[in-house]
């Protein structure tokens, strides 16, 4: 076993990204979908760090990007949860597919 290099991290992040994609389309629970989004964002952040660590050590941007991703993920989560809460008050459930008023 050689020590983990760039390609290991990249493939791992790609896997994580795809699990997130799978989650967002299969979870019917709104909070579950939100969690899948977080997984996708983490995969992207991991990519940045890996590139920074293994390829562009001199450039600080790779280490910086994840910070911003985390900050904005917090804002996004707060907003999403507020909407989910408001929606829950009306429907009394968190099923994404139930009681759709907007269609066709």
């Amino acid at each position: 076993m050689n020590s983990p290099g760039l390609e290991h991290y990249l493939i791992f992040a790609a896997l994580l990204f795809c699990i997130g994609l799978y989650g967002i389309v299969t979870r019917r629970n709104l909070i579950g979908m939100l969690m899948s989004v977080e997984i996708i964002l983490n995969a992207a952040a991991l990519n940045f760090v890996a590139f920074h660590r293994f390829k562009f050590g001199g450039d600080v941007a790779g280490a910086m990007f994840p910070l911003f991703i985390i900050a904005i993920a917090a804002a996004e989560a707060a907003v999403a949860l507020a909407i989910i809460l408001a929606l829950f008050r009306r429907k009394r459930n968190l099923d994404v597919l139930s009681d759709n008023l907007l269609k066709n």
Partner: protein
Amino acid sequence: METLIFYTTAFFILAAAGYVVTTMNIFRAAIGLTGVLAGIAGLYLLMNAQFLSAVQITVYVGGIMVLIVFAILLMPEASMHLRRENPKWFRFIGGVSAALVFAVLAYSITAFIGAQDAAGTSLEPAAASIREIGLALLSPGGNGFVLPFEFVSVVLIAALIGATTIAKRTPNPETKEEQE
């Protein structure tokens, strides 16, 4: 040793992520997600990004996860158990799409790494120190991030105001809807 840690953590994260997207209990999914986030913090440590790792733990696990768990607890009757799942065919198509994306990504990554090796680019293992990050964050120059840093605060204010406005309980939503 590093290799072993990497594979263990990676396996753990993938398992936890898989659990997050498949379990029928939303609370357990939240715990799984905590595991994923913590595991990624571990990977950051492994890549010498200590500051990021700390931020990941404090903000993500300590902040966002708590928010999510609060939300779950606020809506208990509907969220603990997911009675309904998407039908099999739907999950199947979702899986196929995700697998498709992964296949393309894997192919591209292989090509990318291959090209790197062929070009003989040496991979310089290095990482920015906390000091470098801190300086860059507040530097107004070409390599600085002070502008986005300040604007993130605007995003947070906007999110705060909006979220409170929306999530605020209306005096009596039911009667209001009936009046319409």
